[in-house]
């Protein structure tokens, strides 16, 4: 298969802005044109081959090797194709992304998939804060698409997101789903504090108990039907969440009443030995 391979040969001393490293830009370029591609080292314009060994040309498949944690804006606004990164990557990975996929065998910085409208980003390591978020002042974060982080995540993930999915395998920090307008966040290992703060709509699912703001109130304990459909969707992304009512149920909390919002936080409660499984509908239980 024809792919473009970049190997980092020199670590930049200050951040390097590389929005040119996107399938949209590279897919029609010859090897020489890729080598001459303009990247920005701090204030100075440099060439791609100042920092990378370049192989291949004219492809929407891009593979990057090396620790590029100082490189920002990889895959910015990409509409299709695929980027694979073997190493850590810097901020704004796949920001404003509209399609295609990005896979990182390593960690990623802040603002992964910020304001993205479609596409798939999978980080096998940890990610920073503001995943799928809106930039400062913006009324909307990610519009659609999916971001999967196998490891942990930082502050304010999914801030003001409207649609789409964020899955975090490890723990997330504060303000997951801040001011969320829609979409889903799945926290496989929970989050620190203030999850769902100021959320208007949307769903946050946590598989482990998490502390909630006093402005979320317990609605019921149930095994929601929509979750089975959503679990099918997630399983295609390689994510599994429990939906078997014999194994447990979800506690549904609504909020944030300070807005007042109609957001939902679902927290998985596995059945303890001897408990009788509930099979249907939404039942109010004493909490």
């Amino acid at each position: 298969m024809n792919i473009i391979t970049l190997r980092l040969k020199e670590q930049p001393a200050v951040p390097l802005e590389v929005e040119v490293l996107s399938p949209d830009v590279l897919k029609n370029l010859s090897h020489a044109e890729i080598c001459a591609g303009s990247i920005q080292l701090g204030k100075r314009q440099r060439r791609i081959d100042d920092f990378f060994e370049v192989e291949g040309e004219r492809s929407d498949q891009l593979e990057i090797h090396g620790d590029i944690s100082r490189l920002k804006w990889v895959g910015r606004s990409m509409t299709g194709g695929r980027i694979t990164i073997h190493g850590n990557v810097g901020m704004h990975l796949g920001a404003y992304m509209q399609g295609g996929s990005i896979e990182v065998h390593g960690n990623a910085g802040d603002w992964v998939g910020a304001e993205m409208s479609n596409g798939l980003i999978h980080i096998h390591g940890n990610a920073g804060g503001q995943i799928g978020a809106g930039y400062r002042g913006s009324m909307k974060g990610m519009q659609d698409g999916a971001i999967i982080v196998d490891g942990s995540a930082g502050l304010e993930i999914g801030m003001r997101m409207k649609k789409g999915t964020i899955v975090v395998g490890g723990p997330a920090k504060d303000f997951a789903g801040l001011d969320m307008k829609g979409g889903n966040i799945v926290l496989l290992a929970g989050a620190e504090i203030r999850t769902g703060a100021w959320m208007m709509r949307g769903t946050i699912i946590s598989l482990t108990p998490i502390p909630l703001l006093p402005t979320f109130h317990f609605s019921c304990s149930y095994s929601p039907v929509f979750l089975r459909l959503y679990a099918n969707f997630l399983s295609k992304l390689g994510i599994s969440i429990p939906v078997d009512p014999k194994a447990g149920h979800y506690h549904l909390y609504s909020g944030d009443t300070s807005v007042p919002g109609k957001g939902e936080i679902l927290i998985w409660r596995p059945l303890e030995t001897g408990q009788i499984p509930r099979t249907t509908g939404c039942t109010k239980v004493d909490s």
Partner: protein
Amino acid sequence: MVLNIVKNATCTFCGCVCDDIELHADEYRITQAKKACMLGKAWFLNHTAEQLYPDALIDGKEVSVDQAVEAAAELLDQADMPLIYGMSNITCEAQREAVALGERLGGVVDSHTSL
């Protein structure tokens, strides 16, 4: 000795920026700061017109201001990502110049607000 009295002086120690201070000063020192609070008094009375510090230093060695300015310009110009930081204890006029310099340098300009 000449006693200089400045009315409606402005204190820039804290964010209140009180502008009703009456300062009494001799050639070297402010001797009184009427209406200023404890913090303001300390601020005004601790400064002096004496030359307690060298005009300029490079690597800790005294140099002329011209040399220091030239060295600063060279270092900042050479940098790929220079940072200009602080600005809370300088005048707005100096802040304007700082933004112009940051723009010229292609650097980052930031204040205490970002903390």
